Each structure stands twice: as C-alpha cells, then as structure tokens.
C-alpha cells in the first residue's frame, strides 16, 4: 500500500497536530448577584448566586485576581467595601467579613433580624447598616478586627429591601414595600415616609418593591422599584420631584457615579439606563436628572451595577460581567473605549494528565475524571478522524462538606488526585488506570487547605500553596505521605499564590502571587532560588521550560517575559521581544493568557492560550512587526509552500477553536482542546422576561 508511507511523511511535518476537541465539560457559571466597586483600590468585588466571590483589578486589565469559593448556605445579597475590607450580607441572616489574603471568610456575625437584604457603610467607614426582613435597620460598629452590634433604628412594618447613607452620615434612606423611610442615624427615629406608587392596571394590587435606593449629598433620593420606575425625591421635604418610567418590569439595581453627576439603573429586560444630572442650558444652574443613554448588553435581569469613573459595570442572571465604557469619559477608539465581557474565570478549571491522557474537570461541587478517546489512521489537515473509542467518564467525585471546591490537581501519571476547599484538603489514589479510587487517610498535618495545587512531573511530589505565599511540599508514597518541608518566601509576603509551576526535571518550582511577585525555589535544597524582577501587571500564566530551564511568564497586560533560572536574568529573546514590542493586535486582546506549555519535540516552541485562540510562539522565527498581519494563518494556507517563509512570523495563532478553557499538549504530541461554547451556556439559562416583539 503506497498511501501509508505518504501519510507518514506528512505527519512528520512540524505544524501538524492531532487535536482532541472536547465540548463535554458542562461548566456553568453562576448568576451575578451583587457588586461593589472600591474607587480607592480600583477593585471590583462580585458575588455570585452560589456564594462565590470574585475580585477584579480594574487597574490591571480587569484581571480576576482572586476567587473566594462559594458555600452551600451562603447566599450573598449585598456587598460592601469598608476601606480595603470586604463585607457581605445575605439571606442566611449573617454578615461576613472576608480574609482576602487567605481567600476565605474571616468571621461571621448573625444579625438576628432574619434574612438580610442590604448592607451599607457610612462615608466615614465607622458604621455598617443592614436592612433585615423583620423591618429593622441594624447598625454595627466597625472595629479593627471585628464588627459589633450597636443598635436598631425604629422598627418598621415590612422588610427593608435597600438602604443608602447620606454622605454626611446623619441620615439613612431605606427602601421598603410601597414606601421609602428616612431615618435619623443619630436618634434612630424615622423622620419621613415617602409613598411609592404602585404600577398601573392589574399590578395595582401588587405591592411595589423598592429594589434600590441612593441618597445623594444634595439630599436628593433616587429610588428604583418593581413597577419599572426610577424616581427622584427631595429628601429634605419628602416630596417626589420626578418619575421616569423606564421599563414594564423591575428596575433592580442603581449605581451613582462618585461625583453624583450620572447614575445608571439596571432592569429585568437586561437594559441599563443612564441618567445624567444636567442643566438644560449650559449657563444655568437649575440641574435636572435627564435620561440619556440605554445600553443593552444582557439578555436577562441586571442584578448588580457599578458606576466607575469611566465605565458602567453590570452583571446579572446571564452570568456575564460587562464593562461598558462611557464614550464621553474615555478617548475614542482606544483600548479603554472597547466594551469588555468577562464570561469565564481567568484561571484554569481543567487539569490534564499528559502521560495518562486523562482530564480532570473542576466544578464547584464535584470533580469529573475523563479518559480521552482514540482514533486510528491519518487524516488530512482540516479533516476529522473516525473515533475508534469514545471518551469515557471514569469517576465523578462529589465533594464533602458545604464548602465549594477551590482548587484541584491531577498528577501527570493519572495516579493521584487532590482537591481542596477552604476548610479541608483531600488526596486520593487512583488505581487500575484511574478507575478505582481510594482516599489517602494519613496526611501530614502541615498539609492544610490550599489555594493552589500542583504535582511534580514524575508524580512523586505534591505542592500545595498555603497562607503567606508559602508552599508545602509533600512526598507521595504508597502507604503514607511524608511532609518534606515548607517553601517560604521572604518575610512580608501575604498575598495568596495563584500560580504554581514545577519544572520537568524536578529541580525548580515557580510560584506567583497577586502582588505580582514571582518566586523560584530550588527543590533539592527546599530554598528560595531567586525572585523574578517584579513587573507591574499580575502574572496570569507561567511555566518552566523542560530543557533550558527558562521561566516563561505572561502577564495580565499581555506582556511575555522569559527569565533564565540558571543565569538569573531575562533571556536574549525576552529582551528582543521587549525592545521590539508586541504587535498592537496582540496587546488589544481582552482575555488573559491562562495556560503556558511547551512542545517537547521543538524546544523553540511556546504554546500559550486564551479564551479565543491558542498560539504557538516559535522563538526561531522573526517577531511580528507592526506592519505584519498578526493573524496570518489563513494567508499562509493559501500561499504555495516556498512563499510561506516570506510571510510567516513567530506567532502562529489558531483561532479555529473558541471559548477555550484548556489547551494542553499530551506526551504523544496530540493537542487537547477543551471548548465551552457560550451558546451552550446561554441555552441553559432560564427564559428571559417576555418582551413584546413586532408580530408576536
């Protein structure tokens, strides 16, 4: 048969890959419930329906730098920054402060008022007010290490749904059913009662819920309610100034800009409506709230909103976080003026055992272990191969306890599995080709709940990052696991480690934390080897090259650095890359690189991946210059072979696969690509509110 050698010849070609294209990872993000933006730190805190919290750094390319896993009983209804401290309150009736360095709740206080709907802090940051189901507004004093109940304001009939402090700290406006109450914060007396109209027609009999409220420094109160209204009130006299009917459904969220010149309201239709405080003419002083823009970036309820200085941040039932810049505040046609949507976490939920061909999928409440399928024969590029053996789900492991899984890892040989929640750590031994599982019960007591887990390449060691940027090293042996030591960074590192990477030869371990520090440890000596010069943007992915021991780090601002661990300096290639600069289109991408890996067959190849593409960076080829086409694969395909050299550059970008959650290179040189099409997520969402469309 003459065909076989021909096919074999073709397989030898450099750029050809067999790809396992996987779409059975049913990852389903949870709906966004609440948001709080801190102008001081430029951080956005976001709470999801499953109780998970996410911290986004808006000054560093909207990078999701921290994730606090959820908890079964915790339903966060409201979030609040007090300086750098983060508080949440929820329908379980508890107020929680979070430890953002150890990514877990610090303590929880029961308010004893039934479910809590809302939380707010005064501008001095000394008093926390929560609105409860039983009709009380409870005040808590913010102390250094905890909060302490101070007193109740006058108890009202009906629940307190929303509240807002006057910037002076003397008054509190509270949204309730059918009305708004204004309290004197010092005496605790209710001073005004503002009656909110119910909707017209059939909904006249239904109570109207004041979903959100804002108290401005000029004593204006803005309220949004379930009858679709945004109302503007005079808070001193308790009179209604203006009503804007903006939807037939609920207006669920409000957010006012820092300078109180603009506010946004989010509706159940998925629209965000902007109002601006304008005078009708420039030279007059009498200003009015005027409805100016409408944004439609969501298909479902907009539950949470934040008005930053330059943008409107919104999120809701459709699970996406949308950052929509206001075009009068940013320079047009720049990176800042582009709309951003965050649909997937900025870290990997998939772990691939390269030697065993087994995948681990991490869900909040369980883990799934899958073996890849097989095919035989060869195919032409662009075609697909017949699947001889389909993929197989080996194990579904339910977590124990109420805390959601925060990290997990699978050893390269497929023999060990570990996961951690904020309260417990578990290690399992997988036997008989990963189909039988048994828990390793005797664990060293130093192995505490971890932020990140990683196995060594030979599956003999487990690395677990713990508090204060330290890493616990454990030797994996059959009967018992032995604690080898703790790798400690220099004194003063407090931020959690979010990236761990061990070198193939077992000599190095690199860690990165959210303070942008990258440390490299010598595993033979269990000592710090070196610290990579701190770069101003957070590392999003890194890996150590198997042969050259160069550490490749990619940052949230899309910069790529290569650092020689032997020479303790940036490599020649890295310098060249910095000198020439990355292509502008590369820098304009709006999703971070989440995975770096190498091609064992070609040491010059670095494989990086973000949500919309994966790229093989060939260090032996010239870097793309500004005048080159960055996405040139289609052009190269159409050119005859000799001409390709002229047009090719070092960044070979493949956009054939979209919404990539993982790209990994197996030992047999085949790629594993895990996709989660956005359409599959959208199809699992509940139906949006009905809207009258023409001819329906």
């Amino acid at each position, binding site marked *: 048969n003459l065909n076989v050698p021909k096919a074999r010849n073709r397989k030898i*070609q450099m*750029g*050809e*890959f*067999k*790809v*396992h*294209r*996987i*779409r*059975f990872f049913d990852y389903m993000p949870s709906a966004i419930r609440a948001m709080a933006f801190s102008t001081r730190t430029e951080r956005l805190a976001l709470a999801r329906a499953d109780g998970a919290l996410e911290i986004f750094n808006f000054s560093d390319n909207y990078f999701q730098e921290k994730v606090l896993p959820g908890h079964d009983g915790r339903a966060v209804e409201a979030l609040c920054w007090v300086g750098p401290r983060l508080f949440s309150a929820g329908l379980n009736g508890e107020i929680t402060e979070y430890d953002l360095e150890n990514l877990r709740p610090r303590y929880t206080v029961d308010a004893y008022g039934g479910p809590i709907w809302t939380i707010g802090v005064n501008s001095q940051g000394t008093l926390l007010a929560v609105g409860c189901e039983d009709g009380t507004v409870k005040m808590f004093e913010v102390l250094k290490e905890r909060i302490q109940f101070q007193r109740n304001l006058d108890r009202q009939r009906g629940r307190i749904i929303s509240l807002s402090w006057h910037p002076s700290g003397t008054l509190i406006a509270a949204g309730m059913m059918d009305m708004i109450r204004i309290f004197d914060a010092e005496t605790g007396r209710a001073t005004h009662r503002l009656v909110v109209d119910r909707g017209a027609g059939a909904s006249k009999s239904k109570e109207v819920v004041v979903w959100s409220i804002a108290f401005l420094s000029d004593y204006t109160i803005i309220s949004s309610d379930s009858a679709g209204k945004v109302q503007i009130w005079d808070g001193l006299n308790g009179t209604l100034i203006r009503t804007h009917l903006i939807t037939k459904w609920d207006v669920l969220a409000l957010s006012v800009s820092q300078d109180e010149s603009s506010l946004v309201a989010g509706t159940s239709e998925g629209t965000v409506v902007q109002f*601006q405080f*304008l*005078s*009708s*003419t*420039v*030279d*007059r002083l009498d200003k009015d709230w*005027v409805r*100016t*823009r409408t944004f439609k970036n969501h298909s479902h309820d907009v539950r949470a909103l934040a008005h930053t200085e330059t943008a409107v941040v919104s999120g809701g039932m459709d699970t996406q976080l949308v950052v929509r810049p*206001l*075009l*009068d505040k940013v320079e047009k046609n720049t990176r800042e003026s582009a709309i951003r949507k965050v649909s997937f976490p900025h870290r990997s939920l998939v772990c691939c055992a390269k030697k065993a061909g087994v995948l681990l999928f991490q869900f909040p409440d369980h883990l799934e272990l899958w073996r890849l*399928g097989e*095919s035989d024969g*060869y*195919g*032409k*590029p*662009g*075609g*697909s*191969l017949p*699947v001889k053996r*389909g*993929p197989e789900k080996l194990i579904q492991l339910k977590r124990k306890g109420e805390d959601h899984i925060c990290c997990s890892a699978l050893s390269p040989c497929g023999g060990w599995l570990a996961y951690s929640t904020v309260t417990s750590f578990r290690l399992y031994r997988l036997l008989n080709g990963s189909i039988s599982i048994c828990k390793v019960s005797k664990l060293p007591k130093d192995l505490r709940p971890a932020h990140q887990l990683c196995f060594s390449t030979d599956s003999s060691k487990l690395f677990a990052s713990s508090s204060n940027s330290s890493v616990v090293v454990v030797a994996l042996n059959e009967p018992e696991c032995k604690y080898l030591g703790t790798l400690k960074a220099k004194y003063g590192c407090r931020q959690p480690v979010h990236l761990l990477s061990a070198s193939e030869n077992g000599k190095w371990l690199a860690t990165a934390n959210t303070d942008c520090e990258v440390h490299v440890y010598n595993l033979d000596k269990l000592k710090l080897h070196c610290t990579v010069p701190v770069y101003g943007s957070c590392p999003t992915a890194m890996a150590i090259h198997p042969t050259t021991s160069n550490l490749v780090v990619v940052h949230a601002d899309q910069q790529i650095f290569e650092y020689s661990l032997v020479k303790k300096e940036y490599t020649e290639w890295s310098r060249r890359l910095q000198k020439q600069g990355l292509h502008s289109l590369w820098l304009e991408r709006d999703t971070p690189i989440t995975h770096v890996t190498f091609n064992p067959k070609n040491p010059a190849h670095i494989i990086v991946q973000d949500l919309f593409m994966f790229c*093989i960076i060939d260090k032996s080829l010239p870097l793309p210059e500004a005048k080159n086409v960055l996405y040139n*694969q289609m052009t*190269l*395909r159409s050119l005859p072979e000799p001409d*390709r050299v002229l047009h*090719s550059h070092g960044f*070979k970008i*493949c956009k*054939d696969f979209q919404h990539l959650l993982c790209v990994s290179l197996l030992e047999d040189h085949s*790629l594993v690509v895990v996709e989660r099409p956005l359409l599959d997520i959208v199809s699992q969402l509940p139906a949006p509110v009905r809207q009258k469309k023409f001819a329906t």
Partner: protein
Amino acid sequence: MAALYAGYTLRGLAPAQNRPNSGIQGVEAERDSDHVVVTDSTRCVTLYKVSDQKPLSCWTVKQGHTLTGAAVYNARTQEYVAVSDRKVIRIWKEDDIILDKAFKATVSSDVWRVHCVAGGDPVVLFHRGAVRLLDSLLSAPQQPIEEVLSPEEAISWSTNIVTESQQFVIFTTEQKGDHFLYLQRLNPNSLQRYHLEREEPGLSPLSFSVSYRDKHIRLLYLYPNGHVYESVVSVRAPVPEEGAQALPLPRSLLLSLPVGEGLLQAASAQELDEAHVAVVGVPHPSAGSGKDFLCIWNTNFQTLQAGKEMAGKIYGQLWSFWNKLFIPHGKTFSVIPYDCPKSSLASALGKQRQSLTNDQVLELIKVRIQFILGSLAKHFIIKMLNKSVFNLLMQTAPVEEVQREVQLLLSRTDTQDLQTSVGQLASTLASRSLNDPAFYTPSSLVQLVHTRYLCHSVCPDLVLLALERKDYFLCQLCLQFFPDIPEVVTCASLIAQEHEAGLNGFSLADEEDRSDNLAEGGATAQRDNEKASAAEQMCPVGLHKAVLLYPASARLLRSNICTMLSNVLFLQYLQFVYLKFSHDACKPTQGLRSPSLTQVMDWMGLLLDAHFTVLVMTPDVKDLLLNLHRFVKSQVRFVSELGKIEGSLQELDKMALKRDVGQYSIEIIELF
C-alpha cells in the same frame, strides 16, 4: 432650545419695485450693544440706537457721489470710515454734521471695503486683493497698490477678524466657477490661498459667515441646494511660501436644509454659536415651500429650534450683533432678538468634546456680512414675460420656433412657475394641432409629458391628439405617466386601433407563424436591447399596439369592456413577450417601458382565468392556446429539473457546514 423673540422695526425700506436688493449695503456694530451704523446702497450712513428704534445721526454724501463701501466705526478713535466712489476714503466723527467737510483721501486703486472690528485696526481691502492698514495707507494715499488676484478673479465677500495675537482679513473670490478663500495675516503679513471644494456644477455659495474659536477660524457657507458646510482653518497654520499653490480646503457637511422646490436664491446662513446656525430664505420644513422664513438650526442634533415667518420678500441679507438678528425683508428692516442657550445634552452625550467654559470666557469674534451672489434676473424674466404674448407666439408661430421656445422654457431652472405654464402650454399646443392638421410638434409634446407636470385632466386633448396623429410613442408615454386616464378613454383608444388594424388587413395567422419561428429558435439574430425595436420586427401585434398594450394592460385587465378581439390580441402579445423573456433570461430588459416576466405571467394568468371559456370556443385561438400549453409544459419540466439540481447543491452546502457539532471529535489541524 434656541428662541426667536418678537422683533421690531428699525426703519422702513424704500426699495424700488422689483429691485433685487434691499437697499442696505451694510450694518456695522457701533460703540455698544445698542448702537449700529447702517449704510444704505446709495449715499446715506445712519447711526441708530436700536432699543429706541430711532436714528441718532445721519450723514449723506453729495449728490453725484455714491458710497461704495459700508461705513465702519473705529472704536479706538471714535471715528467713522467709509468709501465713496471707490477711491475716496472718508473719515469723520460723530459731531461732524456735513460729511463733505470731513477728512477725505483719494487712493490710487479701487477699494473693495474698509473693515474694522473691536480690538483691531481699520483695514482697507482693495478690489484686486491687496490689503493695507488704514493708517499706513493714509500716510501715503497715492502709494502704488499691487494686484494680488488674477484678472478674471473677483472678490465676492470679505471680512476681518481679530484673534488673541493677530488680525486677519478673510475674503473669498470667484474665478470661472471655482471659489477660493484668502487668509491675509497682518503684522507680519502673509497670504494663504485655499480652494473651496466644488459643489454640484454651477452652484456658488450664497453666503459666508466666519467665527473664531479655539485657535481655529471656522468658515460656514450655504449653497443653493441647501447644504451648509463648515471648513476649519488653524490660525497657526504654517506660513506658506511665496507663489504657493492654493491648498484644498477640507469641508464637512453641517446641515442639509430642506429647499422645497428648486434651488435657493436669496438665502443666508449665519453661525450664532458652535451649535446654532440662523438661516434666512430657506423654507420651514413643516410649512410648505414658501422661502420667507428665519430659522435657527442646531447643528449637533440637526434639529430646527426656532422659526419665524418674515413678511415680504427676503433679500438674503442677515446680520447679527449682540444676540440680535438684523434682517431686511419686504419693506421693513427688522431687529429680532434671539437666545441660543447652550444645551448641555450634547456634551453629556459626547457630541461635543471641547469644554464649554472656555468658550464662555472667550468672546466670540464674529463678523457677519452678506452678499447676494449672481443676478436674480432669471427669476424675474419669467415673471415679466407677458403670458399673453407667449401664448400668442405658441398659437401662431411655425413648428420650429415653437419647439425652440418650449425647449427654452423647459431649460429654466426655477420650476415653481413651470407647473402652471406647462399645463397651459400643452393644452394650447394640443388644441392648435387638433384644429390645424398641418401643425404637429411631437418632440415638444414628449418633452412636456416628460416633465411629469401634466395629467389627463389638465390636458384631455393630448391623448386624442396622439391617437389621431398615430403617435404611439406619445400615447404610451401618456398612458404611463398620466394617473387619471379614464378606462373608457383607454379602451376607446385601443379599440380604435384594432379597427384600424382590421381595416389594414392585419393578418393574425401570418404573424403567429413568425412568432413560432422565433420560439423554435429560428430567429436568434434579433436581440436588440430595445424591446420596442425587436417588437417592430416580429411582434404579432405590431409596434403601435405593443407599445400601447403594455401601459394599458393593467387597466384593461380590470375592466370587462374588452372585446374578444382585444383579448386574443393581448394574449398573443403576452406570449410573444414571454417567449422573448425565456430566450433572453439573462438579459435584464426591465425598463420603465417594458413589462417584467412576473408581470407577463400574472397578466396571462388573469386573462386566461377571466376569459378561458370564451377563448376555448374561438377556433382561431385554439392553436395559440395549444402552443402556449406546449411551451409552458416544457418550461415546467425544465424548471423542475433545475429545482432538483438546486436541492442537491444545497445539500452539499449543508454537509460542509455540519462538520462538527458533537461533544467530542478528533481533528487534524496544521499551523504554518
């Protein structure tokens, strides 16, 4: 919202009957916001206190002399400067009573205008483009003045503005249809020439207005087609070398004003602030086509903010000083206060980037001077044309002269009067032709029909005339363009034709054979673009009826008056067109004057539906029907085969798309 307040009359105008201009040469600001100097077009300069609506002083040059440049007020010296008899510069103070006793100086070249604005020195602009400061000119009045402009170039408008650091004289010129903008800097002197982009051929700007804002000079100009453009020139633009070429002046369309019927004739646009433009002589969009309106438009949102009807004729002159618009109209010279509050919505929505406070501090330096371009004579010619004389001409003149006159009339641009005159003219010509068998002007009539101002009720004789003279082309045009031809007339015209055809021994059978030949592919050579010419050769109905049948058929189908004969004829015609279409499927012959394939099919279906029993009973038609049937059957078979092919091709398409939808696949990719 900008607003126009109730105006008041500053003074009456005494324009001569039908004189195109208002008699006012210029209005200039005086010492404060309540005083203006008005120069009329002959001999008189008057100082007004605006709020009192009364003149304070009046100066007149002697009989025999005329003022050729509007008087300006020099606030530094509190003197007035004017130009008389093109060469004499006169300077006087308010307490000088007799102008001829005041200072005079004669210069060596014709002066176009003297300009002076607050904060600047008086400047003299000469007819040939040279510019001098008044002081330096008076120090040596007879100094030689250079020629800047080429001989054919003439100044059309000029102004003078003062920026923080420099004074500018700005003027526009026309040269053989091209328009240029000159920017003359003073101290140090330099001249920059810009070429205005051409609008539609033959259109010249009607008015200019200049403002200075944010280190940029903004020129706003209005064209007769209602387009208002803005061009921006930086005051810091590099000083050009001597003899440099005219730079192209980029422009942006600010507004596209409604012009109603025809072009604007006497209109003017004035920039009021960065967002508002006052326009006079342009129709109000919601008040018909009358052009006697003063409107304020917002350029950010393209909205009309205020409008006011101005009684009487609009001269296309408009000045504005200190929130007051000065406008001569009819027999009055009115002052209309206005208010343009700056809307903050535009800046909130990002439509306006620059900060507004800066603008408030900056005093807007604006000079608004108008001019009327071109003569308005054409407009008056028609009015003055004695209609009875014209009619007489039409009734008596020989054919050639009539044709020439009609051509001339139609070539005029102002279509307002055309509508009535075309109707009159057509009926005059039609009745004359009906009465006088020797007189017929087909080309003129076709031209008149083509204007689309005609209809059957205006000129009922026209169709009859066309039928009588067997002018089928004209007949078809009438059937096509006249919306109101009664069915009786349509049918009568067709039946009359059939009779004639019968009398002429028109053989159906022969023609049918010929069309069969065509169907069998015998005659392939005849494939002219013009369906009519093809029809001439082979159409079973003959050209004259084919031509008539098309526009008439839609009407006919709805009526039952059609005779048997017309049905058969029509069916034959349709079959012919159908065959023609199936042969030239790829050739799009859908003009206005030939039916489309679907139309033909529809008509055929309608006709057969309505008259099938009658048609079947007629022995003559049997062959025709059989023929048609055979042809349609083959077509159906052919189309169904095509459908099958289409189906399989679509399947191929789908297969290519459907490649991966599964949860898992193993693919090969190649990276280059």
